[in-house]
């Protein structure tokens, strides 16, 4: 086994370890850690050190060793893991992350500056009584981490005996540079007498192997049967952990078993799979069309089966890309911890809905905008402690992160219980900048959304508007790029909530096709409430839906379609963000899986269209941007009720 091949795994696992340690350390900053917590952090550091050593990253080993020694002092009760020490350890964590980054760039030794940072950190760790440190280091030396028993599991392929290899021989060889202890023969694969082929190998072995030889040497012992055996090597655990493991061997086995239930897959492979499934869906749509034209019933039946299967595959493969948002959320614990420390504010982060799943690409790209929103909330949302006290709020500010699913979208809320937005100032600012009429009376949501306008917040606005708006246009642009929308709610003095709505996936959606004239448009099925027959008195832009006013828009006029209207038109009722509107179309074509193709750059300014899709016939259908269309419909009907002249709509397509 080439050690270099294992490197990416090492980096991935180290990053995971660091993340886990970070979570635990952050927990320590708010509450006194239990012995279990300390042990877990210690084990993390220990594992990290061990594997770094295996790959020869000596500078990581040296640094982590000190961190480990410090944690050991905590374990022995010679030091207290208070929030201050946890803070230093967090910084150490960051330092290790940097060292790892360095190591991943081809094992370049750390710069002087980094070494100095490391030394500084270690010094703050070692500020505990010197004597204890010496003692702890001594204890460490007396029981070097490398001595201990490896846990070895061995399985051979049945053909190994016939190939002239004797598994016993390898075990005897192992005994030449170590001691095999507590061997158990795994004979559960031993077949019944009748099926027992004496020339096949059925047994496996499990044992503890005491040696100070490195992993390579143990693996090397099985060089000759590398293809014919599976070797499981678990490095010696630190003493305490070993004791715990011995006490609960069943538990450990269970842990290993669950560990095997996930595999790491290169995300590019997944992307490739999704792309191909996209092509498959388009191809199947084409085949379906041919089937219908051919008039052969058998053919159509077959295609119906195929379509069903493809749909399941699509669902399944998209599921593969779904990850829980909790991982992203817990990252903010750190952001909150750091920023609040920096600003001297006491802030508590409350997280809910962390099990909500969404597409991995979306998760990756939403992290930055969310960080910005969270930082903003801490920096400008939460007031200073004395101001909070004067307003009768708890001295500890609260930031809430929440996520949930809502009609095919995921909603992420970032809220704070801070000072809120100052409506008057924003209004004044907006009028000053000519964004709205001086006489206009915009709704709160319209007004607050102006904050996302590029350049709305200027230097003098930072103080006036409690700084919100700095980079908010960037946040909005990032979210819009993900086909999402962002909105803001705020009550002055009570807090602000920023709501981000994102599509669950970027690649394939369940689409509902509608026709106008000869053109076909696609609406995301999840955004559709129902379809009703078109009925409205001439000249009105709204209808009554079971007694409720429903504004609607003619797709024909929106896109300036030339063809005459069909005799019977329908209204598709769409919903977004709690609002509803109707879209008037000629024909309802039904549900189709739709592969989203982004529009070319030159069309990015086109309103009401979010993408395109290729139909089975090879024709292109435009995917409607439901929030934008809905907005248009509502605006139009409001304009009409206000008896103002129709502003006219931009014709596209």
């Amino acid at each position, binding site marked *: 086994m080439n050690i270099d091949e294992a490197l990416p795994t090492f980096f991935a696992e180290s990053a995971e370890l660091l993340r886990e340690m970070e979570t635990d350390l952050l927990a320590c900053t708010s509450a006194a850690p239990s012995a279990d917590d300390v042990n877990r952090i210690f084990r993390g550091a220990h594992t990290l050190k061990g594997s770094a050593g295996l790959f020869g990253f000596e500078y990581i080993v040296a640094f982590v060793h000190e961190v480990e020694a410090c944690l050991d002092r905590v374990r022995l009760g010679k030091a207290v893991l208070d929030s201050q020490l946890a803070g230093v350890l967090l910084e150490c964590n960051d330092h290790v992350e940097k060292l790892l980054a360095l190591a991943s760039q081809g094992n370049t030794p750390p710069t002087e500056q980094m070494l100095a940072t490391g030394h500084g950190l270690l010094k703050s760790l070692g500020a505990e009584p010197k004597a204890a440190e010496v003692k702890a280091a001594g204890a460490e030396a007396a029981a070097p981490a490398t001595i201990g028993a490896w846990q070895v599991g061995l399985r051979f392929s049945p053909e190994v005996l016939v190939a002239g290899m*004797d598994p016993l021989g390898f075990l005897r060889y192992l005994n030449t540079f170590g001691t095999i202890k507590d061997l158990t023969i795994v004979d559960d694969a031993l077949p019944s007498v009748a099926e027992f082929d*004496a020339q096949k190998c059925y047994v496996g072995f499990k044992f503890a192997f005491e040696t100070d030889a490195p992993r390579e040497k143990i693996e090397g012992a099985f060089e000759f049967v590398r293809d014919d055996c599976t070797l499981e090597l678990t490095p010696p655990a630190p003493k305490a952990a070993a004791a715990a493991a011995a006490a609960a061997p069943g538990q450990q086995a269970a842990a290993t078993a669950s560990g095997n239930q996930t595999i790491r897959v290169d995300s590019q492979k997944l992307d490739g799979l999704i792309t191909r499934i996209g092509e498959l869906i388009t191809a199947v749509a084409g085949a379906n069309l041919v089937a219908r034209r051919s008039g052969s019933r058998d053919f159509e039946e077959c295609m119906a089966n195929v379509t069903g299967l493809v749909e399941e595959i699509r669902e399944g493969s998209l599921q593969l890309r779904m990850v829980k948002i909790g991982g992203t959320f817990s990252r903010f614990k750190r952001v909150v911890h750091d920023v609040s420390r920096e600003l001297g504010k006491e802030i508590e982060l409350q997280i809910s809905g962390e099990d909500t799943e969404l597409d991995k690409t979306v998760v990756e790209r939403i992290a930055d905008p969310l960080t910005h929103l969270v930082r903003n909330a801490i920096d400008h949302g939460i007031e200073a402690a004395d101001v909070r006290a004067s307003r009768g709020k708890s001295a500890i500010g609260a930031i809430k992160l929440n996520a949930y699913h809502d009609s095919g979208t995921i909603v992420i809320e970032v809220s704070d219980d801070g000072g809120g937005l100052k409506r008057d100032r924003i209004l004044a600012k907006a009028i000053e900048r000519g964004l709205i009429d001086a006489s206009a009376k915009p709704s709160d949501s319209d007004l607050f959304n102006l904050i996302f306008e590029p350049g709305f917040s200027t230097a003098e606005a930072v103080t006036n508007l409690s700084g919100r708006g700095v980079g908010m246009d960037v946040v909005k642009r990032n979210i819009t790029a993900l086909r999402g929308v962002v909105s803001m709610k705020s009550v002055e003095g009570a807090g602000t909530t920023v709501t981000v709505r994102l599509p669950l996936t970027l690649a394939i959606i369940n689409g509902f096709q509608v026709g106008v004239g000869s053109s076909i448009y696609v609406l995301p099925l999840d955004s559709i409430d129902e379809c009703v027959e078109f009925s409205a008195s001439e000249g009105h832009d709204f209808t009554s839906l079971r007694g409720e006013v429903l504004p609607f828009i003619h797709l024909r006029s929106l896109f300036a379609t030339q063809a005459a209207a069909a005799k019977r038109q329908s209204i598709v009722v769409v919903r977004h963000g709690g609002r509803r509107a109707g879209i008037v179309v000629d024909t309802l074509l039904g549900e189709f899986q739709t592969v989203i193709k982004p529009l070319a750059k030159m069309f990015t300014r086109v309103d009401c269209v979010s993408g395109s899709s290729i139909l089975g016939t090879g024709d292109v259908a435009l995917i409607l941007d439901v929030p934008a269309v809905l907005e248009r419909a509502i605006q139009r009907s409001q304009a009409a009720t206000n008896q103002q002249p129709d502003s006219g709509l931009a014709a596209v397509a």
Partner: protein
Amino acid sequence: MEFQIESRAGTVSVCGDMTVYAAAELKTALLAEVAAGNTCLDLSQVQEFDTSGLQLVLLLNRELQGALKIVACSPGVRATLELMNVKLLSEAA
């Protein structure tokens, strides 16, 4: 044939090698002995003993529901059984 089997008073003595080369025949022969009620093994004349031999011993022991007794064995076999943690040895001093 690289081995010989002899049974007397419930004890089966194997003489020769218990390796993969003879495993198939050994299996048939030993199973027949066990079926005939011989539940003790004398391995003192066994030279080579490999994984297939070990498997056979395990198989026989399972057939006898754990009642197999190894009453004598050669130093080589003893080392292997000890390494393997197989506790079937019950030597009559």
